[in-house]
């Protein structure tokens, strides 16, 4: 008999505050598993952002720093510059990273900071109650765009991976998803690569993970997975946007 799946030692015993079916839980578990498997739990400094991701520090069994809204990449920069040999990452949602923190994420990539960013894109502001995010899809109904996102009024959704991949200091950018088991297994590989490239001193890595917000979307958890697959992936195609080889 072999245990093929058990809870990671990278996770604490604290139950998450996430709504049922929110895939934040899956993504954080993947981070925990990767750090555990790489033997990095004791040498990692995580930077949590504002939004649903803020309480990450209660769930991951590592030292963590809470960051003001949008500033996790700056906080991580400070930490990495003090501890160049430690593993430093940010865990940010789309409101945090793609709206209030766009300058910070662009410039952490621009400087080629040797950190890893886990970018959770669920196309909405979850924690504050379902407002429009820069990543909200055209026509998607949210509390601050009750008629659906009007692109003539609010612009098209921001494609963060495509944008960051253009920046020379970014060495690895991939968009993954967690809408089915296969996608989850692949997402873990991508997250692992992001940390391995950091350990190898390559530069900045960003892994964008398409995620669900059943509560904000007004869908059941299971229907949310389908919605992600049918609506988000066509606009946010999965794949690798930058590799260290291309960055050279």
């Amino acid at each position: 008999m072999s245990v093929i799946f058990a809870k990671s030692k990278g996770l604490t015993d604290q139950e998450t505050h996430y709504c049922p079916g929110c895939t934040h839980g899956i993504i954080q578990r993947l981070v925990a598993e990767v750090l555990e498997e790489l033997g990095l739990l004791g040498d990692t400094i995580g930077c949590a952002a504002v939004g649903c991701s803020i309480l990450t520090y209660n769930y991951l069994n590592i030292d963590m720093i809470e960051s003001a809204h949008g500033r996790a990449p700056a906080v991580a920069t400070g930490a990495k510059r003090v501890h160049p040999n430690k593993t430093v990452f940010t865990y940010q949602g789309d409101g945090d990273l793609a709206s209030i923190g766009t300058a910070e994420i662009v410039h952490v990539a621009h400087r080629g900071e040797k950190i890893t960013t886990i970018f959770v894109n669920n196309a909405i502001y979850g924690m504050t109650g379902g407002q429009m995010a820069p990543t909200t899809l055209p026509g998607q109904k949210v509390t601050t765009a009750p008629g659906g996102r009007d692109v003539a009024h609010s612009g098209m959704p921001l494609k963060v991976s495509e944008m960051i991949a253009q920046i020379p200091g970014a060495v690895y950018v991939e968009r993954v998803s967690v809408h089915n088991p296969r996608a989850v297994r692949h997402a873990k590989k991508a997250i692992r690569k992001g940390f391995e490239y950091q350990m190898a001193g390559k530069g900045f890595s960003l892994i964008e993970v398409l995620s669900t917000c059943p509560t904000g979307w007004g869908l059941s958890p299971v229907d949310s997975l389908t919605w992600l697959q049918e609506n988000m992936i066509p606009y946010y195609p999965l794949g690798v946007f930058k590799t260290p080889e291309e960055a050279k």
Partner: protein
Amino acid sequence: MPKSLMKGNEALALAAIKGGCSHFFGYPITPQNEIPEFLARELPKAGGVFLQAESELAAINMVYGAAATGGRAMTSSSSPGIALMQEGMSSLAAAELPSVIVNVQRGGPGIGTIQPSQADYYQMTRGGGNGDYRILSFAPATVQEGAEMMMAAFDLADFYRTPVFIVSDGMLGQMMEPVEFPERPLRTLPEKSWAAVGHGGSRKPNTIKTLVLDPGLLEQKNLRLQEKFTRIAATESRFENYRTDEAELVLCAYGSTARIVKNSIDLLAEEGIKAGLIRPQTLWPFPSSAFQQLPPTCRTILTVEMSCGQMVDDVRLAVNGRLPVAFYGRSGGIIPVPEEIVAHIKVLLGRV
């Protein structure tokens, strides 16, 4: 070490290195640019790290990240840049992260001017950040005093686990004066066992955070912070008295303005008018005790600032109605000259 002739900004930068600064993060703004320029050149030679941030927001949060992981980090900026950093100040104070922030004040509000000002007194003592917090604020009046305050700042920050302000202005920053750097006073500093540096598998994870959703717990935290602020207020407030014995008028001024006021007092003395000066060296804690020891001859108080009247509030609180408190100020980047203050004082005292 022999004396050097240095700009106030450069002396602050060198003093930061001598005070044990390990990391500087900042964003260019006049009139403080000599600080980052000096540190970009000299801090790496001393084994430290200089990094230019993309904004003041990023700079203060880099300081936050570095301080959270045990670094001795600082930033410097000028008024509008400090305004942008206020979110970070509140976070630093809440997370109790030792750090040093220099404000070389310029005229405001808004973008204002690059000329000297003291209109950030509220910003430095009340803060633009949210919540109940206080930040130890040193206000040097000479290049030498700035260097000494800066050399002590990092240790004080570590000792109290708190951010520390150095409040300068465009005049002090740009002027050159002789300065010497004494040995840094020894202070036993606590271990940073709270820092997020990786738990190494040997302890529970450290978390640096400011979010406390439970009102009861947040109130407890606030009360604990207030206890610390009370302790700082009791031990760190500083002021200088200048010719206050037998003064019929006591002036109150800090920083650059205090230098000018001293000239005014000397000019008045030549005419037989006895005036003195209380010069706060810390803006928070405000040296209220200085106003408990006023000479019996004192009839009135005059606060002079390069602002439209900010510190005067604290002077009124300290005097608490026992004597009239008047105000004279210039703003917009105008530095008052000794003679105009003398003229104002004569009117005030009915000696025209």
